[in-house]
């Protein structure tokens, strides 16, 4: 059963050099309260795993503006000046991962796979340094799992067992990231009693959740 903690406590558990994945898509579906506490605390040298780097003043972008990220695996950083600058200055190491490949790599970690074979990225710079396998006459890139010490995700509602439901497009990468980290912290707008979420509606089963933070 997950522990219910506050955002400050959550932020303090994350240490320098930890890999942290955030479910967020242009700051929608982002655990903003926890991000704010992380910014206040200022823990540095984090490795960021996220779909996009969001905005300079919104979502995970705040951690970039505050120079807390030393490296990142993202699919998009066009909406964030801080990371573009730090990237151009060599202050941050960035691996650009196609969004679908990023999702598959995270899912692979969560589902115990050693990797997946994907056509995305073939013939592009994404294939650099990667093994290419030919399966039944077609070429595929071998993409390896991506895991993390922490997943910091956002959901609409949790019951006390950690079963989660989301809101609209704020769902995005949150469910898959919940499967792929050693510890998972979810920020929710509402905590309800066990049994108050219809078992058919649960998107993320409670087994994946370690900590719940209520906004």
């Amino acid at each position: 059963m997950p522990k219910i903690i506050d955002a400050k406590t959550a932020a303090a558990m994350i240490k320098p050099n930890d890999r942290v994945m955030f479910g967020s898509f242009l700051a929608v579906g982002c655990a903003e309260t926890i991000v704010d506490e992380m910014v206040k605390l200022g823990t540095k040298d984090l490795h960021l795993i996220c779909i996009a780097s969001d905005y300079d003043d919104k979502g995970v972008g705040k951690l970039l503006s505050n120079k807390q990220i030393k490296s990142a695996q993202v699919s998009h950083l066009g909406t964030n000046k801080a990371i573009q600058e730090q990237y151009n200055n060599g202050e941050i190491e960035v691996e650009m991962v196609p969004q679908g490949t990023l999702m598959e790599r995270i899912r692979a970690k969560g589902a115990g796979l050693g990797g997946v074979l994907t056509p995305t990225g073939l013939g592009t710079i994404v294939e650099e340094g990667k093994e290419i396998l030919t399966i039944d006459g077609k070429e595929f890139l071998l993409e390896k799992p991506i895991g993390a010490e922490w997943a910091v995700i956002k959901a609409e509602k949790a019951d006390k067992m950690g079963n989660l439901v989301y809101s609209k497009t704020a769902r995005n990468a949150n469910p898959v990231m919940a499967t792929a980290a050693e510890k998972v912290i979810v920020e929710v707008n509402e905590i309800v009693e066990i049994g108050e979420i219809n078992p058919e509606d649960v998107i993320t089963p409670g087994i994946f959740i370690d900590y719940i933070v209520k906004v």
Partner: protein
Amino acid sequence: MDRNDRKYKRILIGKRIARELNDGDWCNLGIGLPTEVANHIPEGTSVFFQTENGMMGVGPAPAEGQEDKDLINAGGGFITALPGACYFDSCISFGIIRGGHLDMTVLGGLQVDERGNLANWMIPGKMVPGMGGAMDLVTGAKKVVVAMEHCDKKGNSKLLKSCTLPLTAKEKVNLIVTDMAVIEIRDNKMYLLEIAEGLTVEEVVKATEPELVIPKEIIYFGI
């Protein structure tokens, strides 16, 4: 409207691409120019739009004050959900994209070459926005349509013999719709299908770096 007007070009391209869609098609529109396509779906044709951040059944932008902070498209713009819409996570969303379930995807382009290579995600030393979902969309969709202006600001052809920018995907583009022409890519060749009203074949050929296969009968498209 002036043929060189940006809005004219946008409508011209969007309207022409809309005609590629069949009733019941499932489609993903990229950020920018491609979104114009949604404004020109012929009456009586139902087309369902995906946004890769996790929804099928994208509706028009909400009225001011009606925005839902949890409901955006892949460009970060507020949207609405049509009846029959559904939400899903990014993994399912890209399963739809990569599994070949989309009938069509429309993307912007920096360069397209005659082998169907597309470059649209980075300019080395300059802009590194990242590929986002573009590489997956171009690799996975049944039909890949590129919507872009025919030439860049300096007047150089964006249709090339060989792309010089880093690729988004290799040999995947099926159709290019520009403000000057509709061009199909097949067997490493560019086939001119239609030209914009008011232009001549010679003007299109001159504005295009690779050789174009010219049809016997010229078809024109307009707005």
